[in-house]
Every structure is written in structure tokens, then in C-alpha cells.
């Protein structure tokens, strides 16, 4: 127990319901993994098997698949024309990396100026940024959709890359951190002849690295899972992101439950990168998630 570290914890019997709750948290993952390796006959067996009887990789790729032959499962990597599932993966990956890196560069530059410089209107800009965080982002989707249409950006990467760069919350968060950088350090650098760009890039950014890391996790997780915006601006196959592809696959589940195998294979592959990411950056992840919930 926290707070009262010296007092004995809850009696283990009283913890039992919470262990059961933990099992229910894990269960969807278990079901995802096992379903991904079940052959066609087993996936629609009632009652379902808790342990895979006859594991198969056909849900990922079925070498023997031929169109028109019944009782054949079309592997995940065979289901889409064009770049296919790997293409969706690459789209999501590239978009996430670009938006995370670019939006943090832009936000940290703005954050530095707003934290360490006073100029006419700086207070208003700061208040506008805070104020915009109170507004549900759905308010902006219709005008932004229209902007994309007018720019001719529907079904292009521009629509997936550019509007996402305006991250007011990142600026707000970084302003808080950059204020903690001592003015003396910045003054000393100035006396040594460093320009503003160098102070921002070489003095300030290294000192706020934990905040940048937390923000990077938060932004990249949001981009990786972004669903509504791509849903609005993409309706061809070439620019489909992973969440969009998963959404379409999930939709087809209603019509054809036998597709569950390849769909679970897709969800499994989509979850692996975030899990690896989590294992590598555990500490930053917790702060990234918690700053994330700060977003209004």
C-alpha cells in the first residue's frame, strides 16, 4: 500500500478480486493472440477453444489460397491490393515519426520564445494557446476538412501530416519546462555570442529533454492511434493508415465472422510496435501517458 508503507498491506484474500480483474484486463490480449493462430475451422467453432488446437500461420499468409475456392482463408497480407497491409503499416509509421519530430521542433521553438521572451502580444498568444486547449478538437474538424478540400489535400499525405503539426498542448507543456531553465545560463550563452537559434537548440532543448521525451511519447501514441481525422480525409487505399485499415477490417467482421483470424492477426501486428516502444521507454511512457491525460 502506498502512503502507509509501514503498515501491512491488504490481506491477500482481499486482493483476490483485483487479481481476477487483472485477468479480465489481460484476456482480450490473450484472445487476440490465440485467435490470430487459429485455423478457419477452429475460429468459428462453438463453443470456442481456449487453447489453440491446431495453430496455423494461414491467417497471416495462406500460400494455398485461391479465389473462389470455398473454405479457404485469405491471409492478412493477401487481403489488400496495392501496397497492402505493410503499406498501411509504413504509412502509420512514417506519419507518426514525422508529426512527432516536426511538431516538437515547432512547439519547442515557440515554447522557448514564449517562455523566455517578452514582446508586444506575447501574453495574448499565451492566453490563446491555453484557451484553445479548452475547446474540444471536434469543433475544428469540419472547417479543417473544408480547408483540406479547398487545398486539394483530400487523399494526400499533406492532410495527414500538416494539420497535426499545430499542437497547442505541446507548446503549453514545453513553456512550463523551459521556464525552469535558469536565465543565467541563457544570458551567459548570449554573452558568449550565441544566437537565439543556438540557445534554443543547444542550451534549452538538452535541458528539457525529459519533458520532450514525455511529450514525444504522448504525441506519437496519439498519432499512431489517430482514427477520426484519417477517416475524414482519406478514402482511397494508398493513404490508409493502420487504425483506418483496422477499422475497415473490424467493420467487415459483422458481415463475415470467418474473417476474424486475419483480423486478429492484424490487431496483433498493430499492437507489437507499441509494446516494444513501451518496453524500451517505460519511464517516459508513464509520464507521457500522464501528461496526456492533462490534455483538456
Amino acid at each position, binding site marked *: 500500500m*502506498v502512503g502507509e508503507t509501514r503498515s501491512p498491506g491488504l490481506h491477500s484474500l482481499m486482493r483476490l478480486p483485483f487479481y481476477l480483474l487483472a485477468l479480465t484486463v489481460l484476456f482480450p*490480449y490473450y484472445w*487476440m493472440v490465440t485467435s490470430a493462430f487459429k485455423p478457419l475451422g477452429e475460429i*468459428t467453432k462453438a463453443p470456442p477453444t481456449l487453447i489453440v488446437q491446431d495453430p496455423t500461420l494461414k491467417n497471416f499468409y495462406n500460400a494455398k489460397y485461391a479465389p473462389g475456392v470455398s473454405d479457404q482463408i485469405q491471409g492478412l497480407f493477401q487481403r489488400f491490393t496495392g501496397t497492402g497491409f505493410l503499406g498501411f503499416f509504413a504509412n502509420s509509421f512514417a506519419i507518426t515519426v514525422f508529426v512527432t519530430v516536426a511538431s516538437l521542433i515547432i512547439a519547442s521553438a515557440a515554447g522557448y520564445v514564449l517562455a*523566455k521572451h517578452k514582446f508586444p502580444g506575447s501574453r495574448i498568444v499565451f492566453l490563446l494557446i491555453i484557451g484553445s486547449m479548452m475547446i474540444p478538437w*471536434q469543433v475544428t474538424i469540419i472547417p479543417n476538412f473544408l480547408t483540406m478540400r479547398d487545398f486539394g489535400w483530400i487523399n494526400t499525405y499533406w492532410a495527414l501530416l*500538416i494539420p497535426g503539426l499545430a499542437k497547442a498542448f505541446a507548446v503549453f*507543456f514545453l513553456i512550463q519546462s523551459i521556464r525552469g531553465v535558469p536565465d543565467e545560463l541563457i544570458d551567459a550563452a548570449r554573452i558568449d555570442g550565441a544566437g537565439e537559434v543556438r540557445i534554443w537548440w543547444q542550451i534549452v532543448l538538452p535541458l528539457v529533454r525529459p519533458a520532450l521525451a514525455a511529450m514525444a511519447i504522448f504525441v506519437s501514441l496519439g498519432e499512431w492511434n489517430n482514427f477520426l481525422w484519417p477517416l475524414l480525409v482519406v478514402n482511397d487505399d494508398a493513404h490508409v493508415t493502420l487504425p483506418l485499415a483496422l477499422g475497415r477490417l473490424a467493420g467487415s467482421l459483422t458481415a463475415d465472422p470467418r474473417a476474424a483470424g486475419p483480423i486478429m492477426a492484424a490487431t496483433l501486428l498493430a499492437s507489437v510496435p507499441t509494446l516494444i516502444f513501451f518496453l524500451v521507454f517505460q519511464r517516459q511512457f508513464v509520464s507521457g501517458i500522464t501528461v496526456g*491525460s492533462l490534455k483538456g
Partner: protein
Amino acid sequence: MRNDKMGLAASTVGGGVKVTLGSAQPSRRVRRSFTIPLLLLLPFMVLFAAFVLYPVINSLYLSFTNYNAISAPKLIGIANYTDLLQDPRFYKALGNTALFVVSVVVINTVLGLTLAVVFGGEGVWDQVMRAVFFLPSVAGGIAILAVWKWILNSEGYGILNAARGLFGLAPITWLGTPSLAIAMLVMVAVWGGMGGTMILFVAGLRAIPSELYEAAAIDGATPSQRFWKITLPLLRPTMLYIIITGTIGAFQVFNEPYLLFGGVSSVGGLLDSALTLVTYLYDRGFGRFQLGYASAVAWVLFIIVFALTLINLRLGEPEDRTSE
């Protein structure tokens, strides 16, 4: 006042990051030349103006028009808003959303706090359990909603129905039974959200000085007295923060109803049983391209969220402290 609240929250959750909003003034130094700093600020300001400020204003304007994405928008006064207030589907969406928000926020807060108290320790086992509950915050998103859809399959091979079968119960169409729709949404949202809430409460609990508990123990306070008289009052900022952000987030719910209940003809499930405000906005705006009307829905959403945030802040104000 709001700044103070947010600063408080940020400092409890920011991990290694020191977050203070107390000194809201930018550094007092006045630079002779603004050119370079303004150039650094410029990229963000251009993007912010184009994709945040302008859309907010344009959205307000569109909400007073009959814009349908094809012919030029025509001002029609407050007709969209008066239509909205007579629209049964809007009330359905509002009622569903309100029920969803209240259920999710209450259950998540109670469960999150309970889990933080039970598994908040430093032991390896506690850390493992925290990671388990935190897992949906990491590997969640659309992928896991597809898994839920599979778990909730209406046939006998849906695992939840198979579990019912063990007790001799007939399969249920989990996502096609109107009286269950919101319960399903709440279940999935709590499953995904309680771990994040737990992490916030763990941070809040650790910020409480242990001397307080020691002093109370010396004075003979029972563990339950210590919980109600020390832990809970001191967790107030964390709790307020969780309730406010949880309310705002839950009001914007879209992915869950859209993916679990959305069908070919409707976004709200059978009899609109899972229609929420944002899925309704999506349906009007991008299903029927009534962009003016949908903008009015968006602004009503904004007003509700804003009002609830203010109410929460007011309710969360400690009675014994004068308002700053």
C-alpha cells in the same frame, strides 16, 4: 484560478518534469531585437492560426448557416440551434453521452483509486500488477476495439456468449441489444481507462507526506480513519483533475461507438442505442454533409464541456480556502 489548478495537476503527474504555472509572466528581460525570436515562433503561429484558431471561428460561423458542402453557405440565424433543440436524435445522443460519461467517470475514479491503494507499493509484484492494468493505455486504440468486437460476437463462438453457455444461458447479441449498448461502451471504456487513472492516483498518493500517517497513527487513528481523514482530502487535486479530464475525454467519445456499433446504415447502433454526440456530429456532417447543422452540434458539445469544467472546478474548490 484555472491556471493554478492545471499547474497543480501538472506538477503531480509530470514525472521528472518540474511544472509550475505560478509565475505566468514570461521572463522579464526585454530584448532589443524581436526578429529572430519571432521567426522561431512563426511556424507554430502559422499552423496554430490555420488549423486551430481559424477553424474555431469558422465553425461558429458555419453553425449559423445552412452549409451543405456544395452550394455557398447562407446565414440562417439560429435555425440550426432551434432545430437541434427539437431533434429527438440529438436528445438521444445527449442522454446516451451523459449516461456514458457519468458511468465511466465514476467507475474509473473509484476503481482507479482502489487499484492505486491496493497495488501502489514498491514491491515487484505490485509493479507487475500496475503494468498489467496499464497495458490498455499502451496497446489500446483501434486494434483492441476490433478484438472487443470479436469477443462480443453474437454467435455461440463469441467467447462472452460461450461463457454464458457454461451457465446454460442462451447467446446474446451484445451489440444489438439496445438496453445493453451503453453498458457495453462503459465496459470497454473502463477496461481501457482504469489503469491510467490508477497511475495518476499512485502519483497523488506518493505525494502525501508519510509523517502525516505516522502522526495520525500515534494519535490512535484507525486505518479507515486515516484513509477518510488524510488520504482522501489530500488527494483532492488529483481527484478533481481526473474527474475534469475524464469528463472532457468521455464527452468526446467516438471510436468506441463508431467501431462497435456503426453499421452500413447507421452510426448509432440499433435504435440509436449507442449514438453519442460526436458520432451524431459525424453522421450529420460527413454522412449527410449538413455541415452547418453539424457545426451547431460541435458548439453545443463545446458549451456543455466548458460548463461542466467550470462546475467541476467550483465543486472541487476546498471549502476552507478563499478563492484566489
